[in-house]
């Protein structure tokens, strides 16, 4: 079994990438992702990792390099944040459509302008429909584990899709947390070498990313949609096997003190741990409040979510991105949509909070639950509210 250490979460991500023995790393420095790629470049420089490190001139090139290298059969890794993701987004969509299982760790950060180097989920939500498998990590251990789990899932012959591991910038990326690392032998047992059925090879020429006419485009998109949905059993199986190996079991929707809960907080990412503390406080006072933490964002776990949410009266959904002029935060609007056809469904109350790393404290969660209960009793409330804004 692995050793327990205190480690900066970014370095834990790098350590997992090293243990995964990647072949190609291409990334461009951007706060708050930089520590990951800095540490990886040290590994390569010091001979601790036998990989090609490509110091590209932009994120657009980073994603292009990774897509190309994965296409020739090399396990490829990149990481970015915010504007970097926006710049690479053109290629991000291609990588998924071409079914190339690149792994990206995304240290989530706001999008400009105004410039903010701090944390929220506006970057990843801008590419929500890119077709990658998308996880949200809650703590450093999650990040370390999900780098390894994601290589395994994405590269599965039945999946062959790229994966984004989201981790909150600063509040995860820059903190030192206690965690348990795995040794090389255990990793090798869990993660087989990357083998693709089809690679770019001059001896056996194929075309990847070709043009398709309107007569067949719809069929290619149907195939892509089905492929992402069909990755679910492999994800669940990998989590089960990883759990058996390490004792750490993960689920698409993590439930915390949901038994008999009439109100459920719903979070995604690192604020889930703060929400747990708030739930404890409310439970101590006898309030029937629980918590759902969405770990798997794509493919969205409809079955698990509906099962977990169906018994509640109110869902208090905390979004960390704004959909300007839209129906609310992206998470809340998707959850509303997922519940719409259910015969009995909880009311969804949506708060957008924690933009640019503004603290969301346990007291904020308690205040949100108070306000949601008030709205529920009145029977009306706004579609969403930007929580804590000064008026």
């Amino acid at each position: 079994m692995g050793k327990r250490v205190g480690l900066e979460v970014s370095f834990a991500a790098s350590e997992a990438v090293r243990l995964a023995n990647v072949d190609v790393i291409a990334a461009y420095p951007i706060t708050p992702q930089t520590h990951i790629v800095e540490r990886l470049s040290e590994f390569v420089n010091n001979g601790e990792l036998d990989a090609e490190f490509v110091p590209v001139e932009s994120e657009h090139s980073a994603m292009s390099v990774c897509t190309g290298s994965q296409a020739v059969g090399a396990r490829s890794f990149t990481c970015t944040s915010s504007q970097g993701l926006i710049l690479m987004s053109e290629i991000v969509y291609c990588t998924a459509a071409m079914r190339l299982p690149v792994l990206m760790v995304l240290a989530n950060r706001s999008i400009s302008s105004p410039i903010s180097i701090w944390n929220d989920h506006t970057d990843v939500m801008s590419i929500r429909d890119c077709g990658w498998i998308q996880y949200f990590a809650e703590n450093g251990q999650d990040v370390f584990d999900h780098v390894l789990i994601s290589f395994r899932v994405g590269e599965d012959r039945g999946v062959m899709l790229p994966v984004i591991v989201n981790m909150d910038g600063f509040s995860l990326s820059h903190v030192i947390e206690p965690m348990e690392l795995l040794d090389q032998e255990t990793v090798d047992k869990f993660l087989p070498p990357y083998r693709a059925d089809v690679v770019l090879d001059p001896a056996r020429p194929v075309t990847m990313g070709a043009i398709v006419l309107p007569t067949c485009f719809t069929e290619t998109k149907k195939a892509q949609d089905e492929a992402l949905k069909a990755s679910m059993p492999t994800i669940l199986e990998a989590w089960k096997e990883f759990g058996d190996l390490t004792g750490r079991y993960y689920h698409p929707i993590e439930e915390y003190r949901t038994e008999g809960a009439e109100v459920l907080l719903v979070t995604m990412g690192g604020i889930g741990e703060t929400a747990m503390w708030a739930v404890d406080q409310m439970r101590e006072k006898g309030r029937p409040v629980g918590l759902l933490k969405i770990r798997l964002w794509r493919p969205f776990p409809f079955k698990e979510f509906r099962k977990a949410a169906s018994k509640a009266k109110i869902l208090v959904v905390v979004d960390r991105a704004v959909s300007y002029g839209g129906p609310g935060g992206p998470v809340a609007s998707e959850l509303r949509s997922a519940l719409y056809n259910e015969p009995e469904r909880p009311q969804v109350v949506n708060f957008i909070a924690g933009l640019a790393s503004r603290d969301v404290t346990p007291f904020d969660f308690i205040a949100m639950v108070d306000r949601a209960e008030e709205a529920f009793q009145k029977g009306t409330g706004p579609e969403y509210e930007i929580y804590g804004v000064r008026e």
Partner: protein
Amino acid sequence: MKKELEYKWTDFESGFVIMEPGTSRAYHTGDWRSLRPIFDHERCIKCGVCWIFCPDCAIRFDKEGYAEADLDYCKGCGICSRECLPGAITMVGEEE
């Protein structure tokens, strides 16, 4: 090869990889053409400038070395005509 409308969504390779090389030849982009280049052998000096500039590699040379268009792929853009030094290439309407 199957006709386009015969493909179901389950028929494609993963990631829409095309396993057979050179299939773009099967698609005749010349069908898009509304103007056609006409080559005047009196003026053509066989310099190959049209061949260099053609964005679709649709210029070839006949047995005598004169330039001609491969009408399967010539889209009729007229770049060859614009670049031809002795003015040997005229664009005429397909309808004419």
